[in-house]
């Protein structure tokens, strides 16, 4: 008689790692758990995740966390106070506004920019890439030519020109950045689609009578998602830096909104003696970008160990 | 070349190669022992039997994180385990040579063939460039490459597989090593080219009186080419015998391998299947 197997308790570690899952959910959760384990071994990746969670929390609870009003400052008494002054941990700017509060509220703007750019650029790239890869032929040729043309453009300069034409404002900045960001996602989606296009499970679905539209939407697109997510996360830092650059030039969020790039620009005038006005927002940008880079690196290593050179 | 020593060229006693992996340690080679004189020894086994790792351990080419232990690992009286990295490096190429499997991957793609051959020479001997070039051309002729001057200036991707493997042989034998380890030297080649390369190898080994370790998965090839055969399974030696006596193999795994060789004229229904017993990998 064969050895009697103990069925593991649901949601326990053994259940997740079992190589004979009894339900789709168990298989899915098991895979996610393995990926999480690989990710969690990388301490820098965990640090990145921590930073991003912190960003989300700060943005969500900005009203509660910020000690002062970010747009209305105490011009009379609190102008250009250094960090460590009573009640103003990071100092104040030339309009008497608390820099810490401005940074906290500015995180909302940063988050808004990232989310909107991702929500606009990634789906465009995904659709263009999967359609191009799946359809092939002249559709593929034309779409890829357009993608390559956009890929070859300098992103910051083009975003600059776009915002110059559209007029300054955070919505235009988001649009401009999104327009220059989608091509890499199209390339990735297309590459992934090409690897699956001729596989047997696609043929099987075709035999069942699925329309190309349904095949692309429900079968091909989900498979591209993991590479796309990694790429989007890695691009986040670049998007933040571009947005900050636009803000620095006065093309992003307009005053008195506490956009981090614009804060650096307005603090530039007093950089010699009141260095903190321009320095603090830069640290915020640095930390958040670093967080996304660490997170993206960790995700990439966890999802594809071959890349990590394991 | 040094005069022939008395006693075996290579002594291996209880060699163990262990790789640390995420799920624990994996023992690729588990207590292999044999000696080699100026003769031809074949090591046969399937993928994962540890035969390649044995060869690499002797050369000192195992990946860095692996652990190699043995109660004895000696070449011509030199204790390889106690030798410094520099001493082992001096042995490689000069006194022990190694031929790898696929010249498509084992030759440096951005260096000309001539440069790669000369490199071995200049690493071990003090020669001028022209002297080295002459030696290299001689060596190319010795492996029966008919237009050595032209091939000298070619890149590895510009020559065929058979020629590439002959270049590899030239590259590794040019300093006149006493022992050669051939790790699947013909497995990547077409059958007709295999015989050519093997005959060149045969001639050179005989001419120079070298000891040869021939690693392969092809039992018939090894038995026809070598004097002695070692059969490996799951990191252990399961049989060792002269190739002439192969038909009297005692271990069931070797017998299974022999049964897999097709013969003309006999009816073999049902086809024999290679049996694996758990106790062989214990």
């Amino acid at each position, binding site marked *: 008689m064969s050895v009697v197997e103990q069925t593991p308790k649901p949601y326990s570690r053994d259940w997740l790692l079992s190589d004979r899952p009894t339900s789709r959910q168990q298989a899915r959760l098991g895979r996610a758990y393995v990926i999480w384990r690989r990710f969690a071994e990388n301490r820098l990746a965990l640090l990145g995740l921590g930073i991003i969670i912190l960003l989300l929390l700060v943005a969500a609870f900005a009203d509660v966390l910020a000690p002062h009003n970010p747009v209305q400052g105490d011009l009379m008494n609190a102008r250009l106070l250094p960090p460590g002054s009573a009640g103003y941990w990071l100092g104040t700017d030339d309009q008497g506004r608390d820099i810490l509060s401005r940074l906290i509220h500015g995180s909302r703007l940063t988050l808004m920019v990232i989310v909107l750019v991702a929500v606009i650029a990634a789906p465009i790239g995904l659709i263009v890439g999967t359609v191009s890869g799946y359809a092939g032929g002249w559709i593929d040729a034309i779409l890829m030519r357009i993608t390559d043309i956009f890929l070859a453009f300098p992103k910051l300069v083009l975003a600059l020109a776009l915002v110059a034409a559209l007029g300054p404002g955070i919505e235009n900045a988001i649009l401009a950045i999104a327009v220059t960001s989608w091509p890499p996602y199209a390339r990735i989606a297309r590459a992934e689609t090409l690897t699956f296009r001729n596989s047997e499970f696609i043929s099987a679905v075709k035999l069942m009578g699925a329309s190309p539209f349904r095949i692309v939407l429900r079968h091909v697109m989900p498979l591209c998602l993991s590479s796309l997510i990694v790429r989007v996360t890695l691009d986040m830092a670049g998007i933040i830096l571009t947005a900050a650059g636009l803000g620095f030039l006065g093309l992003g969020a307009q005053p008195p909104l506490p956009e981090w790039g614009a804060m650096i620009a307005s603090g530039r005038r007093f950089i010699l003696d009141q260095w903190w006005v321009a320095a603090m927002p830069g640290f915020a940008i640095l930390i958040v970008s670093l967080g996304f880079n660490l997170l993206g690196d960790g995700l990439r290593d966890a999802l594809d160990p071959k890349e990590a050179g394991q | 070349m040094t005069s022939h020593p008395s006693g075996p060229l290579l002594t291996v006693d209880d060699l163990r190669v262990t790789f640390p992996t995420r799920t624990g340690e994996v023992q690729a080679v588990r207590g292999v022992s044999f000696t080699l004189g100026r003769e031809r020894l074949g090591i046969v086994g399937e993928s994962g039997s540890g035969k390649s790792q044995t060869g690499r351990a002797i050369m000192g080419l195992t990946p860095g994180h692996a652990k190699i232990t043995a109660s004895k690992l000696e070449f011509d009286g030199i204790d390889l385990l106690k030798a410094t990295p520099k001493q082992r490096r001096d042995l490689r190429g000069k006194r022990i040579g190694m031929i790898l499997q696929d010249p498509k991957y084992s030759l440096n793609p*951005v260096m000309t063939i001539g440069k790669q051959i000369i490199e071995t020479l200049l690493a071990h001997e003090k020669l001028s460039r022209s002297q080295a070039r002459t030696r290299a051309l001689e060596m190319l002729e010795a492996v029966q490459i008919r237009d050595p001057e032209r091939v000298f200036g070619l890149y590895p991707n510009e020559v065929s597989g058979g020629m590439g493997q002959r270049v590899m042989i030239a590259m590794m034998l040019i300093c006149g090593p006493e022992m050669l380890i051939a790790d699947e030297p013909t497995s990547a080649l077409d059958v007709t080219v295999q015989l050519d390369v093997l005959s060149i190898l045969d001639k050179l080994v005989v001419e120079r009186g070298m000891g040869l370790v021939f690693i392969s998965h092809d039992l018939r090839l090894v038995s026809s080419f070598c004097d002695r055969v070692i059969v490996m399974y799951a990191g252990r030696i399961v049989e060792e015998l002269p190739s002439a006596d192969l038909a009297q193999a005692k271990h069931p795994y070797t017998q299974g391998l022999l049964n897999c060789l097709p013969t003309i004229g006999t009816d073999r229904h049902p086809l024999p299947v290679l049996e694996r017993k758990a106790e062989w990998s214990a």
Partner: protein
Amino acid sequence: MTLTDTTAATRRKRSRSSSTGKAIFRFLVTVVTTFLGLLAVTFFIGRVIPIDPALAIVGDRAPAHVVERVREQLGLNLPLYQQFYFYVRDALTGNFGTSVLTTNPVMDDIRRVFPATMELATIGTIFGALFGIPLGVLAAVKRGSIADQIVRVVGLIGYSVPIFWLGLLSLVLFYAKLRWVAYPGRLDIVYEYTFTPITGFFLFDSLVQGQWDVFWDAFRHIILPGALLGYFSLAYISRMTRSFMLNELQQEYIVAARAKGLSETRIIWFHALRNAGVPLITVIALSYAGLLEGSVLTETIFSWPGLGLYITNSLQNADMNAVLGGTIIVGSVFIAINLLSDLLYRTLDPRTRSR
């Protein structure tokens, strides 16, 4: 044996020449379509987006007859595709209109300022390659060690820090507090009248003319922005070098090289790095292109009179002709470098040479 070898080799030679012809044709088509695409995008930005392109160019305080004249010049009454035709024709002849700010033709302005940006990008790339490649090799060879971690973190910070902020802080430290470097611009005013540039690369021009004091002054001006851009270049180059080297060190030819008894140093630098060298060259070219773009913000901080400062100044003054002209030039150089590096990769790699 040899007969079959030579037949195969000549067959390869013949197919190589015909595929090179096709490859050149495909390359040219790519070049043309990409440039046309760039012009189409800038045309869209300049003519289609603004409600009144003429107003966008001259500003809303210009008198009516000026606006009307510009409208005529632009041919705004013509259908769009005709406008685009004239636009492309003008761009190809270098006619980007006139700058409202300087009243010069934009092309003349650009010709004046572009060498400054190129010099900066060149210094930055040299710095980045000189330090980035060895650091990447070190990180790959000593993988997992402290050195590897440090190189990776330094690189990651380079990917995460806003360049204009770092420039600002470094200026405060090295100029305001330490007085080690010079600022602003490329030369002290004193030298602007005694020095005649030849190529526009001040370091080179002053050396060639034997003007050591000018050279030293130019050096003191370029060292900080150059090092800053160099740091960004280093982050990218070291990361890619590490990645390429890790890939190469796993290959079989490295095992064979060790079997030959070569020293580890020789294997790393002459075998692994040489193989990594071809994609590395394209990485360096792409880094240069990236620095041209990065200079836009750096020049603002350092008041470096290059193309970047020109574009941002024009931006602040709503000088659309200048902004778009600059964009086209930066874009064109960017595209050219990208395409050329692609071509370079294909021709330099012996593996891809005979296909």
